[in-house]
């Protein structure tokens, strides 16, 4: 019998701790497949965030560092400067990257740091139990916006990809989604391009992935995927926000 589906070599063959219907697992797999396809597992160093993906260092079969909350881009900077021929990636949630680690990601991008960031935007603080994130949509209820995010009092979501695309340091910035197969395929292509650009020394690269949090959204896995398409995608449009090979586009 021919095996047509297997665990990528760069992914540890073990059950993850993620909730049913959460897309962290899919995103992990895409990164692992890209690492396998590029044949870079032996020179890749990953940086895990503080958030639901805090245990990512268990899931990738490559050297890993666990960073303090939001500091992954700084940690990755330190690693990459010491191992310039290595491939360094950070894996970060929206609380980690767009709130407490906002300075770190902006300046890593501005420096054109030769790292790849996979930014998982699920619009909520998953790990701490569903509090409001800087990416929580207006009107959405969370445990710290129980009446729905009121933009008059709680401000507006941050569109990270658009913001970082204004800088000169990044070589590639894209927003993708993993809510259906077609988009999963596109997401993988974007992650692969980001890693390739890093390896080619083109500049900072980031792929923002719209993700789900059924547990804290209070939705079923299926409803969660529908919410990504219905509510998140209009506010966070998919596409390439910067590609120095293709010229800038919106």
């Amino acid at each position, binding site marked *: 019998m021919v095996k047509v589906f297997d665990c990528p070599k760069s992914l540890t063959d073990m059950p993850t701790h993620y909730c049913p219907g959460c897309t962290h697992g899919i995103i992990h797999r895409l990164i692992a497949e890209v690492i396998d396809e590029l044949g870079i*597992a*032996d*020179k*890749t*160093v990953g*940086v895990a965030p503080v958030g639901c993906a*805090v*245990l990512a*260092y268990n899931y990738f*079969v*490559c*050297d*890993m*560092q*666990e*960073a*303090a909350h939001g*500091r992954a881009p*700084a*940690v*990755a*900077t*330190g*690693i*990459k*400067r*010491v*191992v310039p021929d*290595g491939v360094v990636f950070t894996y970060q949630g929206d609380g980690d990257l767009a709130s407490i680690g906002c*300075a*770190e990601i*902006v*300046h890593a991008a501005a*420096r054109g740091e030769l790292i790849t960031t996979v930014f998982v935007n699920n619009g909520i603080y998953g790990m701490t139990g569903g509090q409001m994130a800087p990416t929580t949509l207006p009107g959405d209820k969370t445990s710290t916006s129980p009446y729905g995010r009121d933009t008059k009092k709680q401000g507006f979501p941050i569109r990270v990809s658009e913001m970082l695309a204004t800088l000169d340091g990044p070589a590639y910035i894209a927003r993708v989604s993993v809510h259906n197969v077609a988009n999963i395929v596109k997401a993988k292509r974007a992650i692969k391009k980001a890693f390739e650009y890093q390896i080619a020394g083109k500049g900072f690269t980031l792929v923002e992935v719209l993700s789900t949090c059924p547990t804290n959204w209070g939705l079923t896995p299926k409803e969660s995927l529908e919410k990504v398409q219905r509510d998140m995608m209009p506010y966070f449009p998919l596409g390439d926000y910067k590609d120095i090979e293709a010229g800038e586009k919106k």
Partner: protein
Amino acid sequence: MKQRVLMKGNEAIAEAAIRAGCRFFFGYPITPQNELPEYMSRRLPEVGGTFVQAESEVSAINMVYGAAGAGARVMTSSSSPGISLKQEGISYMAGAQLPAVIVNIVRGGPGLGSIQPGQGDYFQSVKGGGHGDYRLVVLAPANLQEAVDLVTEAFDIADLYRNPVLILGDGLLGQMMEPVEFRQSTPRELPAKDWATTGLRNHNGHKNVINSLVLHAIDLEAHNIHLQEKYALIKVAEQKAELLHCDDAELVVVAYGSTARIVKTAIAQLRDQGHRVGLLRPISLWPFPEDAFAKVMPVAKNFLCVEMSAGQMVEDVKLVVNGARPVHFYGRMGGIVPTPNEIATQVLQIMGVK
């Protein structure tokens, strides 16, 4: 032949780091330590090293974390307010057992304080500063030659024990000029950094992880016990202190760093007048040089701790002396440096000399 060069404290420390093999520096500007990163930004490229001006001290220390985790000899420097910002990263480094050297050219506090010298960061340096049960090795030079020598020591101690080491200077030390000689230290046998994250290619496919997260209580306790055992070893092996005129000293002044220099002047005056006064100068603030205290106890009748603070190290002096002798304190704050006369007056008062 001895090659002595006249250098500013901050620059001497930077050059010493480069000679100790430090090739990575991450920092953020703050007075009175700016000459240190400035020197590094100039010199590191000459030796194939890397200087990055980070966006904040928070980022700088986390870059240090990443670089140390990748096996590099790496340094950062700052002054008090910036060191406060680094505390999160320092705690993570202690937890993940990462070697690096951190320099604090202390200024007056609290808050924004001043840019004058101070010693108000003693508690922060030796009692924690960040969260959790951890220790830094804290070395406090009193002159530039010692600062230069201690930089090499600091890197070796960091690598030997896989622990961050703090060099605690102050604005006086950072800004003064003195002749220094960059000399070879006795080499220590250091373990290979086979734990560094440089890619599986460099350690036979074995996966390395740099981490301070230990979710299960039983495992985290075991990790803490390991750290405490390491600290116990350091406590035995790495105490450093200078004893001056302590053989017959009835009153022992305890002071570190710049303050100890001034105390020395006061003691010279007092000795000329025939008073039996000595100096115990802790060089390692952690581990606190308890052994040196044991040496002076038989003769000493009184201790006087002098600091540029409201009284911080004096608590450790009291712990060591443990009620066996009176421990007095004299301190100036806010960036005021005590004068030899002020100190001599205190000594004479305690000795009952009119």
